[in-house]
């Protein structure tokens, strides 16, 4: 796929907009919110990211990554017009159909907004399917917040509510959002659990402390969704490293309900 | 054997150590590492000529470090590796109780001096196969050696048992596990294997105490110990340096002499 546009989201975090080099691939390609792909730089290897754009926006896909390892560093050096490899889409999807008529509460931390952005835009593009849409997004510092332009846009919209927060010490002088860890801010928001689906994504430690808060407010574990990211190589359930118990994150996930996670060993 | 078990019991009961790293009976005729934490279990400890795997590699295992101060049942090579580890600042002689068994008496080597004295009086003897192989390889031409090693290394599937068994491979992240840059190709094709074994030898040059653990550990029977033994032989011949003898010895490849021989440099 060809890189159409590169957006610098935060220090070390970039978003690529990718277009197919082959027209027939573009025609054929379809995916659902929550799925991921294997992006590759020839000579460096493959890396796994969620597709960060909404399936309702055709003709391109977007992915957001943090420069961390060998492949992501190589990707970060690339510019618009260059070509990268892509396999996918793999994995399961968020069941938006099932959520019709419900409130949606998105809770994301740091670099985990991209996998959720896909489903957020998907929901916003089908706004009439859902009732209230709330997003709680936190990062370590103001700098680390990704999609700043979209956060502004979401903040201005009247048909949804956006709460942003940064960890204590990560604020700047003109920061207008909240200060505090995501689970703490969530508790202050005292979310209603009635007719509400919570979608949680973030670093393992955030997830660990967020689930109990949601349970405290009466969320049923069936109504809490998350997307897991384990190390993967093949994406098709063969290479053997992403499994959590007998479940493969790459083909049975990455989307799981908290209920499902409770029945799995804590190896994620 | 009795003496060892009694000593182990005494050490555990006095609270001097938390775990005895020793040998016990294993599958069939084999011995295996055992970790005795309770004085009731000292009967598990055995000591005989099957006890060859150098147990000092376990001194760095996090799960064992948690249990408490270890005592280790040591063969001559084990003592040498402990000295080498001390010289590389990875260990202090007080961190571990080193037990050597001689004529069914157990001696505790508690300080640098006693470790060094023991090491000096107990040279490591290569098993016969190694001596034979060393001679064979020495008699080969360059092409024959190339073929020999390509052939031997072709069996390598990079399980890294050699690295795991080596007491001196203690890096938290091995060069082969780094991919920026990828110095060592990951796959176990000829090129990747050559790179891995060359790096292993170079990293152990002047450090290998010739315990043979890597060769014993190798599941496919590659005499990989010969590579590190050769590297150490070169270091000894060129720089007069033998590892595993002195606790305050400098590291051969991070020191130098102004008059090191350089006949090959124009």
């Amino acid at each position, binding site marked *: 796929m060809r890189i159409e546009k590169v957006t610098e989201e935060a220090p070390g975090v970039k978003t690529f907009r990718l277009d197919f080099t082959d027209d027939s691939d573009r025609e054929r390609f379809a995916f659902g919110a929550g799925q991921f792909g294997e992006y590759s730089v020839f000579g460096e290897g493959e890396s796994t990211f969620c597709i960060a754009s909404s399936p309702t926006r055709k003709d391109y896909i977007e992915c957001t990554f943090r420069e961390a390892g060998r492949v992501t560093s190589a990707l970060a050096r690339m510019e618009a017009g260059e070509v990268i490899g892509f396999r996918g889409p793999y994995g399961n999807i968020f069941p938006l159909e099932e959520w019709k008529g419900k409130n949606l509460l998105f809770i994301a931390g740091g670099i985990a907004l991209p996998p959720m952005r896909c489903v957020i835009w998907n929901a916003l593009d089908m706004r009439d399917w859902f009732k209230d849409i709330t997003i709680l997004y936190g990062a370590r510092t103001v700098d680390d917040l990704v999609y700043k332009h979209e956060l502004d846009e979401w903040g201005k919209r009247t048909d949804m509510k956006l709460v942003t927060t940064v960890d204590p010490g990560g604020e700047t002088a003109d920061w207008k959002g909240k200060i505090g860890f995501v689970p703490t801010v969530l508790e202050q928001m005292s979310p209603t659990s009635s007719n509400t689906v919570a979608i949680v994504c973030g670093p393992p430690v955030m997830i660990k402390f967020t689930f109990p808060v949601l349970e405290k407010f009466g969320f049923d574990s069936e109504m809490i969704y998350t997307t897991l990211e384990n190390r993967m190589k093949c994406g098709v359930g063969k290479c053997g490293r992403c499994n959590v118990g007998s479940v493969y994150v790459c083909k049975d996930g990455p989307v799981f309900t908290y209920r499902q996670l409770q029945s799995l060993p804590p190896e994620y | 054997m009795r003496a060892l078990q009694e000593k182990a019991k005494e050490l555990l009961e006095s609270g001097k150590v938390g775990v005895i790293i020793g040998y016990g009976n294993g599958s069939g005729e084999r011995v295996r590492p055992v970790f005795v934490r309770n004085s009731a279990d000292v009967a598990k400890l055995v000591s005989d000529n099957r006890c060859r795997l150098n147990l000092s590699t376990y001194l760095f295992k996090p799960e064992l470090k948690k249990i408490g101060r270890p005592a280790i049942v040591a063969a001559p090579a084990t003592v040498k590796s402990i000295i080498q580890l001390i010289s590389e600042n990875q260990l202090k002689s007080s961190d571990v109780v080193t037990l050597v068994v001689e004529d069914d008496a157990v001696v505790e080597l508690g300080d640098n001096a006693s470790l060094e004295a023991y090491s000096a009086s107990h040279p490591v003897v290569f098993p016969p196969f190694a001596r034979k192989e060393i001679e064979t390889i020495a008699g080969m031409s*360059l092409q024959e*050696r190339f073929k020999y090693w*390509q052939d031997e290394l072709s069996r390598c599937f990079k399980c890294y048992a050699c690295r795991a068994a080596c007491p001196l491979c203690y890096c938290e992240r091995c060069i082969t596990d780094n991919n920026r840059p990828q*110095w060592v190709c990951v796959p176990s*094709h000829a090129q990747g294997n050559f790179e891995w074994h060359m790096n292993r*030898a*170079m990293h152990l040059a002047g450090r290998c105490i010739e315990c043979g653990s890597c060769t014993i550990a190798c599941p496919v029977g590659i005499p990989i110990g010969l590579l590190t033994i050769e590297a150490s032989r070169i270091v000894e011949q060129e720089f007069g340096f033998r590892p595993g003898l002195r606790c305050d010895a400098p590291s051969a490849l991070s020191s130098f002499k102004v008059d090191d021989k350089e006949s090959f*440099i124009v």
Partner: protein
Amino acid sequence: MENSFEPKIVAFVCNWCTYAGADLTGTSRTKYATNVRIVRFPCTGRIDYNLLLKAFEQGADGVIVSGCHPNDCHYTSGNFHARRRWIVFRQMMEYMGIDMRRVKFSWVSAAEGAKWAEIVNETVQEICDLDPSKEFSETAIQKVA
């Protein structure tokens, strides 16, 4: 056919002496073989032996490693450390059956432009006599069975 073989030679050199020396060769308009590709390092102490392996694996027929003369190192002792490693590395390579005539180690100072040209010419000639590097080419060291 022998005449058509143009060996690829990679030179790993230190910034302070040999690179400056090679520069001098150029500025003094000395002609020498064009088979060499120079890679500049801060010091010979930085020239990892793995770089030599990689050079051969990527198709080099010969390698030159060169830096400041003993006692002239910009960082006092980088070349002494490098020398110890080379001593071991050379013999290990030979132990594993690699012909070390393909690797030339030298000390070339910033003033020795002529020596640099001489070393390059000499190396090219010697490598030509050895034929293309076989040990590391894909036929001998197969990548995939």
